């Protein structure tokens, strides 16, 4: 059920000829209008943003058209721009980040909400919220000094030794690359998943758990099969937030991804992402076409987010029949 459609009827006739002022005196109408305006502002901002991105990228759009999406060339001097390597890098690093962060985040949230006593859970949550405040550049530096050496010396060789037959883990391991960026991103987005999921789990009514336990479920079964599905939409919402953060992250990614606009099946290879290339080259862009190419990249990322969000929502709607019964999009 998307809304609580409980409308308290008012004293007095509710006819069409009621004057606007009379309607205003009704507190509910004011509340509806006012909150509507705030909600509409969000849409307005997005529309304005898209307009700015569209208008500000006119030159490269006319010059390259659709080939911008499939070209692999990025030549600032020759003024040839193509977005494919960046799209690829953005998708791959975000996917890796989600694969790592979602189980970790949900697991931690379950622990904090279901198992840990409040005296431990609340302070721990404070600290995890702090992770969301760590500036991107600090994550980047830590990525350079800790994750890259770890990757080059321990993780990549281990992966190659065990799973090296997969094209995912082939090629030389420089330490930078898609996997490293994915790991750093995962750390950055995990607080959002934990924080929101924990709150949602905490707000699941007690009787749900008790009913499950009364029917003989183990603690885990009660949690995983009853409580978590009840909180499904909230948890999915937190994953949306995390995904969005991963897609748009700039500084930390650019310090560990290798900044090479190339497409490779191997996670150990260096790559590039949309946000990283914007952060790197935008301020030094000299010609108009070059500058606007970044605006167009911003537009491309927007489109990407649009599609990914749509797919995820579709997935949610298709699996909505089980569990909580709230099939909200």
């Amino acid at each position, binding site marked *: 059920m998307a809304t609580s459609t409980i409308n308290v009827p008012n004293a007095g006739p509710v006819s069409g000829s009621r004057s606007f002022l009379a309607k205003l005196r009704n507190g509910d109408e004011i509340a509806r209008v006012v*909150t509507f305006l705030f*909600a509409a502002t969000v849409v307005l901002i997005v529309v304005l943003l898209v307009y700015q991105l569209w208008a500000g990228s006119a030159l490269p759009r006319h010059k390259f058209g659709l080939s911008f999406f499939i070209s692999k060339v990025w030549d600032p001097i020759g003024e040839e721009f193509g977005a494919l390597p960046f799209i690829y890098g953005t998708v791959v690093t975000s996917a890796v980040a989600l694969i790592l962060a979602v189980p970790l985040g949900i697991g*931690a949230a379950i622990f904090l909400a279901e198992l*840990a006593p409040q005296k431990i859970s609340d302070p721990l949550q404070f600290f995890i919220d*702090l992770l969301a405040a760590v500036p991107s550049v*600090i994550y980047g530096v830590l990525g350079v000094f800790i994750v890259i050496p770890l990757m080059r010396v321990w993780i990549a060789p281990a992966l190659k030794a065990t799973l090296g037959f997969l094209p995912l883990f082939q090629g030389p391991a420089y330490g930078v690359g898609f996997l490293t960026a994915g790991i750093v991103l995962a750390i950055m987005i995990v*607080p959002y998943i934990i924080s929101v999921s924990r*709150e949602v789990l905490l*707000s699941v009514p007690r009787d749900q758990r008790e009913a499950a336990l009364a029917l003989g479920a183990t603690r885990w079964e009660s949690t995983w099969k009853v409580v978590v599905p009840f909180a499904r939409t909230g948890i999915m919402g937190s994953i949306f937030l995390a995904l969005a953060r991963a897609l748009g992250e700039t500084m930390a990614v650019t310090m560990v991804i290798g900044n090479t606009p190339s497409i490779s099946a191997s996670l150990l290879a260096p790559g590039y992402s949309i946000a990283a290339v914007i952060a790197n080259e935008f301020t030094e862009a000299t010609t108009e076409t070059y500058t606007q190419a970044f605006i167009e990249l911003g537009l491309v990322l927007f489109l990407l987010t649009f599609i990914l969000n749509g797919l995820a929502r579709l997935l949610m709607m298709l699996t909505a029949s089980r569990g909580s019964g709230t099939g909200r999009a």
Partner: protein
Amino acid sequence: MNMNSRLKMRKFVSAFMLTMTGVCAVTAVSVLFLILGYLVYHGGRDINWNFFTKLPTPVGESGGGMANAIVGSAKLLLLASLIGVPIGFFGAIYLAEFSGTKMAFVVRYSADLLNGVPSIVIGLFAFALVVHPFHHFSTIAGGFALGIMMIPITLRSTEEFLLGVPNSLREAAMALGASKWKTIATVIVPAAYRGILTAILLAFARVAGEAAPLLFTALGNRYWSPGWNQPIESLPHMIYIYALSPYEDWQRQAWAAGLVLLGLILAVNIVARVILARGVAVPRS
């Protein structure tokens, strides 16, 4: 006997999975302590009275601080909250209590889209709207950029928590004759208050550490920024410049600034929860 061994298996799975969740939590928290440890180790020495009271000095000169950046961050975050929190909060109320499914879909989708925009692009957007027409960088432009970034997290999370309030509470209020807005203000929001506060503080923490959107809005300022219409300094921006500089002296100050930033966020978190604490309406299991 079959039942018994199945039961044993289920119990084992239960114990195992629950332990794994503990492992997850420990991992997440240890990362944080690793970061804090790094910051303390590399920047701890530079946190002193000067840091909080003096303006920055050029490289090599001791005795400088980041007083202007601390005040700058406070001003920027105040503005950002004034913009982001009302839009997110009241917008969420509309979605949860008043809107139809179509409008709700559009607004939620928009918020998610906004969340995915790289922070530097948000900065450029704010530049186009607030800096370019007036030909100067300003605190207002920076606050605007950060405020926009706060909206999606605030909106989506607040909506989730409002919707999570059981209908029984709404029905009870209605039975007592309360109008809709009164129900929202006195029953629903307080019931969801804990989650809403979490959402707002999360959004606040997110933008507190952002430097990219400030590059072309607040610009940065080595001196004090009078009023709201001049370029202004901020802690994340100082960290960005100093951490990537070739001077060890500045790099240490960057870590010190990181530590101070986290300390201030933690303080805000604690103060907010304590000052605005009321009883939690929905009991914890």
